[in-house]
């Protein structure tokens, strides 16, 4: 059936979603490149090559069409990876993230992890210092604008972001961070929220679950920040995003269970005679 899918103002196709996320990720990346004097260009090239390589390998192995959505993850990785990490380490970490974070599940939307989070966690576990990333305010501002774009397009969940923001603000008010309130809107915090924690492929998929996911991620971010350097560092955001993603399917299952129970109670109100259709 070739029913034309054109009558929606902007119907989503996988290509358009990739484009929207790509544009969103490119904006802070360009700001980061300008601020860093172009030192991340090699990382970017490496990340793009690796993403294409792994996607091609898995497409061939699985005899599936190419899926370009992982390109977005390459952009985000190039934005976040500290320049002090050697290229070899970057290559191994990103390959691990792509293969075990998304490819083994069958592509974006079929797994439950964000490959950038997996790659950065891999780097953190292997002893690299993630917190040397010195992204400027321009990156934070452009990442926030990208977040607004994605929210406006409906690709990010406002529930998740609202849950995150409210929880973070409340907890920071009760339990102040040593580095002050400015860290709440620093580059790690904003980029992490928009591209890691809010990733729709790696967060809860129900409305109630989205609230819970935002609240949980914010609580974890603050917990890790308090136990670390006292500010919202990249490592705190990455660890929080990782744990929140791992718990997201469980949160969704809880929502499903509550929904099924509520419907069963409603349905039980009527007569119970069985009829064959």
């Amino acid at each position, binding site marked *: *059936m*070739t*029913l*034309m*899918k*054109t*009558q*929606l103002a902007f*119907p*989503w*196709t*996988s*290509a*358009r*979603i*990739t*484009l929207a996320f790509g544009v969103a990720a490119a904006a802070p990346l360009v700001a980061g490149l300008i601020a860093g004097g172009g030192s991340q260009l090699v990382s970017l090239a490496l990340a793009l090559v690796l993403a294409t390589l792994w996607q091609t390998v898995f497409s061939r192995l699985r005899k*599936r*069409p*190419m*899926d*370009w*959505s992982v390109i977005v993850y390459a952009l985000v990785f190039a934005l976040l990876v500290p320049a002090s990490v050697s290229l070899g380490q970057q290559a191994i970490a990103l390959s691990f993230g792509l293969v075990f974070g998304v490819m083994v599940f*069958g*592509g*974006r*939307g*079929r797994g439950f992890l964000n490959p950038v989070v997996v790659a950065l966690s891999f780097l953190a576990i292997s002893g690299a210092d993630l917190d040397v990333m010195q992204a400027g305010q321009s990156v934070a501002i452009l990442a926030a604008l990208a977040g607004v774009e994605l929210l406006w397009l*409906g*690709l990010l*969940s*406002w*529930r998740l972001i609202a849950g995150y923001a409210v929880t973070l603000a409340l907890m920071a008010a009760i339990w102040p961070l040593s580095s002050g309130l400015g860290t709440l809107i620093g580059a790690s915090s904003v980029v992490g929220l928009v591209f890691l924690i809010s990733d*729709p*492929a790696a967060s809860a*998929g*129900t*409305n109630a679950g*989205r609230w819970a996911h935002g609240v949980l991620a914010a609580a974890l971010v603050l917990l890790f920040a308090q136990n670390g350097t006292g500010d919202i560092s990249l490592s705190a955001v990455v660890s929080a995003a990782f744990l929140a993603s791992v718990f997201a399917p469980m949160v*969704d299952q809880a*929502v*499903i269970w509550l*929904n*099924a129970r*509520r*419907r069963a109670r*409603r*349905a039980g109100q*009527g*007569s*119970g*005679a*069985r*009829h*064959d*259709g």
Partner: protein
Amino acid sequence: MFARNPISGSHPQGNLRVRQGRDLWFGEAPDATKIAPCPVGSVGLMGADYSDLCFDPIIAEGDAVALGQTLCTDRHQPSITLVAPCAGRVESITRGARRRLKTLVITPEGDDTATFDVPSEPGNSAALRDVLLKSGAWVSFRTRPFGRVPHAEATPDAIFITATDTRHLAADPRAVLSDLSEQFQRGVTAIHDLTQGPVFLCQPEGPALVPAMDRLRIVQVSGPHPAGLAGTQTHHLFPVSEIRTVWEINAQDVAAIGHLLMTGTVMGTRVVSVAGTGVTQPQLLRAPLGAAISDLTRGRLAAPGVRALTGSPLDGRDLPYLARRDVQVSAVLPTPSRAGVFGWFERVTATKDGATLPMEAFERSFPFDLLPAPLMRALASGDVESAQRLGCLELLEEDMALLTEICPSGCDYGVLLRQTLDVLAEDLSA
């Protein structure tokens, strides 16, 4: 989430205001005040409209048939019949798998009409059931769950009469019923006798279409599509389950039952909306059931290559004849593929069978207390048990049409739901 006025026994009137949903634009709606008769050159009955039944023709090619004459009977329940929607000659009979009816084509001619003995006084449900079966009106009922023609002896827990139609480009049922109000009332009264449970009449806002009756609940429905579909209405008013079945029937079929009981003859025509961007002049036509799509759209298509579908623009199907439960034909112009860098990018990066990406837009266009993203995943992965737990028994193909349209994966969730429901129907009847 929903402004819901619980419909309880003591309140015959109620409101159902649906907030979630989406009205899309596929062209101008037809003028509701004019209904033009549309003579057609051929009429086809398609076995695929009744996938769970196995019809055997009892007439032969070349036979002359009268309006209302029995053409086919079901192999397993011979009392369920298909009748001729017009007088004419049987042009061809094609059979499909296991020799069941695939298509039966009639060329209309003459005006022979079969008459039926109708029960004179209301309340005689056995006689009513008998005449509905004999006159072919039985197949206008559809069960929920599963969306099948009800068993000849079954009794539903409730009946839903759908006098609302929010499908894009569909005719306004109020306009269609305006000159059938007497027949419609008679039909509602008759249907009322088929169940001991409540009968829901879902209608647009405004004065009640029929006077109050015991067990009849008149519900005024408002909101964007799919507020007017029976699935949305049953979900909020009388949710179905493994142990609770409702029958649904659309308003025009109810009026046809009323006509049958008043005159003893079958009303073989329906008002069909022919509309869409591919149609020069959207119009309401009075045409026989199963009219050939090419006859309904002759001289009305805006461009030669436009395909007219039976059903709504969202979930219409490309079939040669109007399907039994469809009262609209939609023809939408194809959009030219984009030129330039963006078009190139779209073609290069297009994925045919991608995974879905859960978006809040799913919840915003799905007016059910069900969880769309988990349900879509369960359907796409063929996880029948999870789909059942997530409430798929309350749904039929048409209820998934908006999600299919919005989801970026390109999956047809209506088809996936049908497969799941067929498995569940077999499991639950075992």
